């Protein structure tokens, strides 16, 4: 009997038996997305000219990349979406949404805005299309535009996706009670264990209850050694009094960002805290040229400050908190800048 069971089933069974605690919501979400992708792949083997199925496959792979942190899904998603658009170049709203979500995931927010707008034109009643726009406009610093798209999304489909975005919007505006309220509503409307976990994660983040223990961050950095994870691990090491090992993590993160490119905002903040100040400013200026949002304003302010240009940093710091954003890191940067000007 064993001989005939497909390998994947065998693997899942082994994984489940070996570590029962591994069956966290994230794992079930991964496997349900994985199943979804596999059934789309099976469908496309029979009907390879199905533009809609290619688009769904692409969207599913963007989701897979989000929950697994595995960037290889991005390149697969891109190719699936390209195939969908080749088969149906016009009015292919699903594929536009997919390209937009992918661009957001890869921090190409200007590109995401464009795809989002095309998606909204093709599918005016799609909440997902509005979601792409909300994310892109928020990151690009177009607060008014993001609010309009968010309201439209909430009108179209009040649910986990729109409530969690609303919560983030409130958070950026310093309206923490409303943010909490939005997340609680999201939790009420959550229909699966994955969605519940997703909402709880956001609530924890809002309350500053993320697990920054040495063990958790070490596992994360070992599983997915992205710059963000390496820095979290490095900071945990610093707290545990292991500066040499911490240094190695920061260096690796910076090396990775320098050699392979990536998010200049992250690079600017890491370099400002743990690397070369001049390099930090270069990264920050590069990202600021692309988008003038509260996030890039904070990075500019901090990079200027570590270069002993605190007077120039102040206007950027003002902009970072202009919406009312009260993030702990942002406030730490602001206090340091104000302190050095006193």
């Amino acid at each position, binding site marked *: 009997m*064993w*001989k005939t069971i497909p*390998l*994947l089933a*065998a*693997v899942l069974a*082994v*994984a489940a038996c*070996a570590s029962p605690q591994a069956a966290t919501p994230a794992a079930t979400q991964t496997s349900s997305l*994985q199943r979804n*992708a*596999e059934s789309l*792949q099976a469908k*496309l*083997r029979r009907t390879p000219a199905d533009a809609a199925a290619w688009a769904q*496959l692409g969207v599913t792979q963007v989701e897979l990349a989000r929950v*697994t*942190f*595995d*960037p*290889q899904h991005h*390149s*697969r998603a891109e*190719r*699936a979406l390209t*195939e969908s658009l080749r088969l149906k170049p016009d009015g292919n709203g699903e594929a536009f949404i997919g390209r937009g979500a992918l661009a957001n995931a890869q921090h190409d927010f200007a590109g995401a805005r464009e795809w989002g707008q095309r998606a909204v034109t093709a599918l005016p009643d799609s909440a997902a299309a509005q979601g792409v726009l909300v994310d892109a406009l928020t990151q690009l610093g177009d607060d008014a535009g993001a609010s309009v798209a968010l309201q439209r999304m909430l009108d179209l489909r009040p649910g986990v996706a729109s409530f969690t975005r609303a919560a983030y919007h409130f958070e950026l505006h310093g309206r923490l009670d409303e943010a909490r309220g939005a997340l609680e509503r999201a939790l009420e409307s959550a229909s699966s264990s994955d969605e519940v976990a997703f909402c709880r994660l956001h609530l924890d983040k809002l309350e500053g209850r993320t697990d920054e223990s040495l063990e958790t961050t070490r*596992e994360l950095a*070992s*599983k*997915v*050694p*992205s710059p963000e994870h390496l820095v979290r691990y490095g900071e945990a090491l610093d707290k545990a009094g292991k500066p040499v090992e911490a240094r*190695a993590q920061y260096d*690796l993160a910076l*090396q*990775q960002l320098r*050699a*392979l490119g990536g998010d200049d905002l992250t690079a600017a903040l890491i370099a400002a805290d743990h690397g070369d100040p001049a390099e930090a400013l270069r990264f920050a200026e590069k990202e600021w040229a692309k988008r003038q949002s509260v996030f890039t304003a904070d990075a500019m302010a901090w990079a200027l400050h570590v270069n002993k240009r605190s007077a120039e940093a102040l206007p950027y710091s003002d902009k970072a908190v202009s919406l009312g954003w009260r993030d702990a890191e942002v406030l730490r940067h602001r206090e340091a800048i104000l302190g050095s000007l006193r």
Partner: protein
Amino acid sequence: MRVFLLVVFGMLLMGGVAQAHPLSNLSVNHYDGLRVFPDRIELRSVVDSAEIPTLQDREFVDARKRCTERGKSLNAMADERELTFEVRDADVVRPAGEAGLPTMRLTCEYTALLPVRGEVEVTFSDSYLKDKLGWREITVVGVDVAVSGAPAETISNELRTYPDDLLSSPLDVRAVRFVAKPGEGTVVTPPGALGEATKAAVGLVGDLTPLVGIGAVLLSLVLGASHAALPGHGKTVMAAYLAGSRGTRRDAFLVGATVTVTHTAGVLVLGLLLSVSSVIAGESVLRWLGVASGLLVAVIGGVLLRSAVLARRRKRAREGDEHDDAHGHGHGHGHGHGHRRAGLVGMGVAGGLVPSPSALVVLLGAIALGRTWFGVVLVLAYGLGMAATLTAAGLLLVSLRDRFGGRLARFRRFSDITPLGTAALVMLVGVGLATRALAG
């Protein structure tokens, strides 16, 4: 015995690591290839780390130590009995990846004792770095043992080429269960078009009638000839040498004959070594032979350079009282004769020193089928095919030079510099070949 086909055909597609890792530069990819023999299981375990995990891995000291450590996360049971894998061989190479960052490819060879007398059910799982992102693949083949229940062929060619199919998900196989019992071994097929031809030759070896025999010999000739026609066989070097040392048609045949003899001897020795000993890993032997061949070429280049410089000096010295170009030419020729003959033989040895994987496949296939003598004939034919291509290239060059060289000789300065330039070229190519083999 057929397992050695597996050892060898991996090398047919050697090299060629993409700039960006196909499975993202964060991935750590795993492959376990099990070969079940009547008395043991041999395991080749490959870990392919992309750029970032390689940078992250600062504790790496040596491959054997890492392989021992890695062995702890292998778990195998045969009918309730736990198997222990002993490290036989360990190797690590660091091909350059994206942005010049290093990647790491660790290959561990293990053996576990397992007598397959009746039917045995084996489970095998690999939990090494189980949290890392990446491709995971396990294959099982039987060697004089029938195996069922697990895939036999590696679709990533042991983590060298990852399938680029959007309609299949990346493999994530961490465990297999299979049944082994005495019987026919698994037939594995080498990948690629050349692989198909090789398979045909091996297949032909299986059922020997006079017609089939002649066909197999002819096929081996063609395989050898086409193998030598592939780039990287020192043809440039040989050509430069013949041109630079004013070689004759006889010299071209001399090189051809040396290639045949060396190659046939090399394949026979390596083939016999591989089939009597399981300690030798084919890949590392080939690598060292490649290095030796490159160094030999470099040395020949050096000797050539020395005699070219000496000849030039003598010529300079005569230049005052002698203007007859033809005379000077003849003189230099006669003087370098002894060196030249040795250099040509050396060049042939260098060309034939690295046994070609497909010739090895043919030989090992024949040995596995109990027709060793015929395998030797095929390897000889293969060497002849190689020699034919190389000799033809040499002859072509000599006749081209004879036809057009006369005109060129009028340019005194040019003919003066050619031997120096070619000698330097030969040396450079030799160093290059050795370096490439070393970087493997």
